[in-house]
């Protein structure tokens, strides 16, 4: 049959033209390559989607990755060298209950106004409204470049570190109308509540009332919408869209050395998105938990990528819910710890991390020697991978196995566990899958359930989980084990609440231990020895009771692109990397503003 | 066969049928219908499509309740409140439909189509016995050899064969009346006579009465040469009478027009044109005033527009609803009454 093809008439011409035009339109799109790759530094991060984004750093819409490039603290703490890098502050002096800080005179706000002690005071009063500084007495500003903090009693290093390390975000000329009433509120509060730790009923009522008043002030301060971008650091916000946030060099900043003119932050949250950016050479720095083969592929496809493995100052593991039998049984928890080969789990979840030590202390391993005395160490239990002994311990405690090999409680109930994980935290999910597989293999059928964050926190608080994946210690920003002990042992502590720990537990010397009081001593005491003794008590307890089973101490992989847009990345062992204890963005911000990272133009 | 002593099988008295439409208007499908069907009767109902003849069939079958008037079956008003229809009487009236695609379940084999009636209502019980009887039935309606047909599906049969199945099903419980609604309209004309013969045989051998509904006067004449004719127009009976008498002496102009369309009939016109003023049938929703036929009637006078004619007797057994028709005047070609 020989039909003339239908492509010969008006209808078909229309179709033909339509299709060819469509293809033609697609062609340049295929050819179009990212054209403008000039100055600037790019990293990934998150912020609020405009127009909910605003320039008030205190309330939610102003929060985001960009803050590290826009604001700075008085000092940056370097855990590696245990030193402070002066930023807005020049020097500080601790004398008893007082802390005196000298400020950098050449520091300026975004608009060129000089940076003064009023700004520091204003910022910390807002922090106080937010709940910081429970035992603070007053903040004084004898002159524009000096600020004095005074507490009811001598405070520990943790409090000092908070003052020195928090970002100064409340310019007095913008936030003064709320920080001034806050100051008078602080005054009344310290007169009424005084130095007491235990409140009378009247004081308790006053305290709750105070909280509401503080909240009112805070809400008013949150409502401020600054007319222009503010900040003291080298960059200021210039453009915000839902997919990118652009920062430009701030003209009045005291960071004269900063040479990179522009910082672009791309929205990126999950690992796979960041890998995609890296592969495309779209960003200069990214951190993502990455297995070695993916890292290799990325480096193969883009040879300019440098890879650094940095401590993340947090460990990952599982909190046990004491309310759920048999997890309430110490023997069972200890057996679980010995059933899991944490080294193998670590490789699956986060290859470059460090396997958690066998003592299961809520401390960084590098920090352990500082907090654990030899005599404490001698009394600690060890949780090596030793399944045989674990099985034996279970049998001794009355646990049995049925014909299918499933473990039964001494009461004869079948044991089956569930691990709750936040969806989207991929290394948590992967490690948990591996844990579940391992436990199931050992005769304890275990399933992983992923919940989104909203539901996860609710379940955790209500104690509805068996095992919940979480960060055990989280040193971020303060570099002190008090933080993690507080999370674990104090009343209302996040992990302790999830575990359902009792208020008192039997301590090292066979005496009941008041957990709250011990935590407060670790966190607040200026007496280093007292703090250490209290810490030892709690560390011992963590080791014995095992409310939290740590799998690995997290390290993040930072991929940096050398020579694409910027150059000058420090060596891997440079202590400056340990600024990442605050946040990895702080490292980038410091390297840029101090002029260590420079544009990679023709040199 | 008419026996004056026993009540008629079906008796319609002054039956009106109206349907309410969604928009509130009323469609009148039947008006002042009177009809008695006795055992063994052969009655042909004729009319254009939409004239209400199928509706009449449904009323006779007892499927449709009249809006006014009474329907008596075996002397009982079946739509009286609280009346429960005895099964034997219900089964005494069966139907043959026009469209075998709709009347035969397409996914059932002939055996499956024919056996449920036997299974539920006859003495024949047991799978084998029923199947045997289905064979007999198929043979009886001429689907031989029955082995070739019994497990076939309707779509595997021709139109005529399908109607044979329909006849087999209608006769299977030996009813006393079968309403056959255009049973040969969908059948090839070459096969029509055979189907009609089959039904006639039924009447002859078992005395089954037939209400034969059609638009085709020729088949009506063939089917019931001795029977009664009912001519319907727009829901009204316009002429009834012995079929040959009616054809020889059509009294109503409508019947005259119908006859005019048949070549060789008494009133056939040589030019083939229908002696009508208009070819369009008025809507039954809003029927014309007076005599509903007047807009198309070539003889209409003023009275026809104002006054509706009643069915009146012209001669014994021959009635007509026309103001102008008289018994004496025999219609001649092209001549008015």
């Amino acid at each position, binding site marked *: 049959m020989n039909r003339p093809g239908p492509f010969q008439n008006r209808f078909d011409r229309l179709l033909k033209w339509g299709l060819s035009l469509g293809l033609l339109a697609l062609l340049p799109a295929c050819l179009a390559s990212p054209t403008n790759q000039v100055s600037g530094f790019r990293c990934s991060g998150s912020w609020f989607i405009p127009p909910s984004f605003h320039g008030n750093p205190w309330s939610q819409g102003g929060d985001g990755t960009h803050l590290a490039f826009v604001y700075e603290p008085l000092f940056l703490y370097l855990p590696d060298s245990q030193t402070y890098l002066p930023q807005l502050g020049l020097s500080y002096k601790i004398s008893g209950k007082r802390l005196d800080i000298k400020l950098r005179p050449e520091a300026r706000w975004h608009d060129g106004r000089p940076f003064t002690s009023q700004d520091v005071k204003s910022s910390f009063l807002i922090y106080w409204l937010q709940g910081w500084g429970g035992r603070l007495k007053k903040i004084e500003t004898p002159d524009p470049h000096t600020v004095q903090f005074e507490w009811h009693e001598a405070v520990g290093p943790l409090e000092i570190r908070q003052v020195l390390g928090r970002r100064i975000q409340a310019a007095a000329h913008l936030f003064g109308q709320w920080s001034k009433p806050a100051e008078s509120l602080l005054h009344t509060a310290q007169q009424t509540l005084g130095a007491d730790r235990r409140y009378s009923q009247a004081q308790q009522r006053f305290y709750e009332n105070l909280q509401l008043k503080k909240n009112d002030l805070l809400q008013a301060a949150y409502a401020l919408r600054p007319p222009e971008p503010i900040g003291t650091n080298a960059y200021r916000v210039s453009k915000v869209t839902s997919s990118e946030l652009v920062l430009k060099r701030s003209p009045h900043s005291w960071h004269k050395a900063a040479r990179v003119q522009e910082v672009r932050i791309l929205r990126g949250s999950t*690992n*796979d998105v960041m*890998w995609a950016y890296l*592969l495309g050479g779209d960003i200069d720095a990214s951190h993502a938990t990455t*297995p070695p*083969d*993916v890292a290799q*592929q*990325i480096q193969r496809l883009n040879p300019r990528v440098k890879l650094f493995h940095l401590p993340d100052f947090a460990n990952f593991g599982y909190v046990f819910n004491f309310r759920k039998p048999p997890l309430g049984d110490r023997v069972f928890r200890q057996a679980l710890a010995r059933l899991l080969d944490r080294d*193998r*789990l670590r*490789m*699956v979840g986060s*290859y470059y991390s460090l396997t958690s030590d066998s003592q299961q202390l809520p401390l960084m391993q590098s920090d352990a020697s500082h907090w654990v005395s030899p005599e404490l160490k001698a009394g600690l239990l060890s949780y090596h991978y030793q399944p045989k002994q674990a099985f034996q311990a279970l049998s001794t405690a009355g646990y049995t196995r049925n014909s299918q090999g499933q473990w039964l409680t001494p009461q004869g109930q079948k044991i089956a566990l569930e691990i709750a994980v936040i*969806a*989207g935290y*991929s290394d948590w*999910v*992967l490690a948990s*899958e*591996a844990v*579940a*597989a*391992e436990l*199931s*293999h050992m005769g304890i059928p275990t*399933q*992983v*359930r*992923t*919940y*989104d964050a909203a*539901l996860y926190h609710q379940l955790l608080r209500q104690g509805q989980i068996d095992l919940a994946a979480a960060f055990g210690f989280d040193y971020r920003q303060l570099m002190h084990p008090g933080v993690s002990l507080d999370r674990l042992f104090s009343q209302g502590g996040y992990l302790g609440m999830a575990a359902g720990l009792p208020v008192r537990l039997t301590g090292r010397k066979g005496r009941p231990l008041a957990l709250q009081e011990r935590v407060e001593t670790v966190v607040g005491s200026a007496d280093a020895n007292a703090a250490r003794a209290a810490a030892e008590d709690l560390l011992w307890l963590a080791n014995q009771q095992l409310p939290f089973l740590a799998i690995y101490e997290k390290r993040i992989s930072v991929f940096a692109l050398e020579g694409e847009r910027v150059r000058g990345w420090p060596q891997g062992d440079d202590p400056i990397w340990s600024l990442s204890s605050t946040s990895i963005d702080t490292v980038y911000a410091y390297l840029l503003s101090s002029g260590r990272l420079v544009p990679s133009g023709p040199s | 066969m008419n026996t004056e002593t026993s009540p008629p099988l079906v008796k319609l008295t002054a039956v009106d049928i109206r349907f309410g439409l969604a928009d509130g208007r009323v469609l009148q499908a039947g008006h002042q219908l009177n009809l008695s069907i006795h055992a063994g009767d052969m009655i042909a109902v004729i009319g254009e499509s939409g004239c209400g003849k199928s509706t009449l069939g449904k009323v006779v*079958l007892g*499927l449709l309740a009249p809006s006014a008037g009474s329907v008596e079956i075996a002397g009982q008003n079946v739509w009286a409140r609280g009346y429960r229809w005895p*099964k034997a009487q*219900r*089964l005494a*009236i*069966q*139907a043959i*439909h026009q*469209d075998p695609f*709709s*009347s*035969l*379940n*397409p*996914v*059932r084999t002939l055996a*499956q*189509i024919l056996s*449920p*009636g036997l299974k*539920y*209502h006859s003495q024949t019980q047991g799978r084998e016995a029923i199947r045997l009887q289905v064979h007999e039935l198929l043979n009886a309606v001429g689907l031989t050899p029955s082995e070739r047909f019994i497990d076939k*599906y309707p*779509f*595997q049969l021709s139109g005529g064969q399908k109607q044979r199945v329909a006849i087999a*099903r209608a006769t299977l419980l030996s009813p006393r009346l079968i309403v056959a609604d255009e049973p040969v309209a969908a059948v090839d004309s070459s096969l029509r006579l055979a189907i009609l013969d089959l039904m006639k045989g039924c009447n002859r051998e078992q005395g089954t009465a037939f209400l034969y509904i059609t638009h085709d006067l020729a088949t009506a004449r063939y089917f019931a040469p001795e029977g009664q004719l009912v001519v319907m127009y727009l829901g009204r009976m316009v002429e009834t009478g012995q079929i040959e008498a009616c054809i020889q002496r059509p009294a109503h102009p409508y019947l005259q027009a119908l006859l005019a369309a048949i070549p060789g009939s008494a009133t056939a016109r040589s030019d083939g044109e229908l002696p009508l003023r208009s070819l369009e049938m008025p809507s039954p929703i809003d029927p014309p005033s007076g005599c509903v036929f007047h807009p198309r009637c070539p003889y209409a006078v003023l009275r026809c527009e104002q006054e509706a004619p009643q069915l009146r007797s012209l001669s014994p057994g021959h009635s007509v609803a026309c103001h102008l028709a008289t018994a004496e005047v025999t219609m001649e070609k092209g001549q008015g009454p």
Partner: protein
Amino acid sequence: MSAFKHSLQLLRQNVFWEVLRHNRRAALGLFLLLGFACMATVGPLLFQLETRSDYLLRFQAPSWAHWLGTDYAGRDTLAQLVHGSRDIITIAFSSALITLLLALLVGTLAGLLGGRLDQWLMRIIDIFLTLPRFPIMAIMAGLFSIQDPFSFGFVLALFYWPGLARGIRSQILTLRSKDFIEICQLMALPLRHVIFAELMPNIVPYLAINFINVARDAIVASVGIMLLGIVPLSASNWGMMLNLAATQTGAIYVPEAYPYLLAPIACIVLFQFALMAFAGGLEEFFDPRLRG
């Protein structure tokens, strides 16, 4: 019930093999479906699920030991695929079955009874059909915090029944106006005969096709929702395998991981194809007119 009898009868008449003999595609579909059924039932006995992870064996290329290579934690991909088939098949068939039952009930009631009830049911169905399906499914998945494939199937079924019920209703309405139903009335045949012997066999082909369509839709929706990571369902099924491969382990960046990434995709596509192909044969099987 009678539809079941009806099918048995057809099977007795060897109609099934007739259909398969000349409909090659349906035969292939059936073959694949049987393969998947074996995979879900017998498969787990043949392929031991090596649960323990060994990082050193991560993303191995296919070999004699591991026919489809290994996953991100060095476990056999094939074994996971085999064990994971069970959940998907359960979800697909439980949702299709529940949908069918619900729709049949509602559609038949609405079609047969008509009147007010019909109007109300249709209104409700209209509303259901207007709800954006995937978003509401995602919300429902969160709402029920689904723990097992059956309840997953149930949640999906909640969204599939209205469409099918409406279809069944209109089928019933069409059938109800057919003359053979009138004949049944004239023959004073009991209602159960009318419904189960006259009506149902007519809509069985429609039901069969829609059973398969719902099953196919359910697979797509469930895999999609798992890929989004909304459902806290455990990892041993194709959807979760894909979730892990595509978004959490970097498998899309590592060529060695392609067998692991592509295996569940291939299985889903094949399963979908098998269902589609078999549906054609099933329709023929139930509808004598198509066999003619």
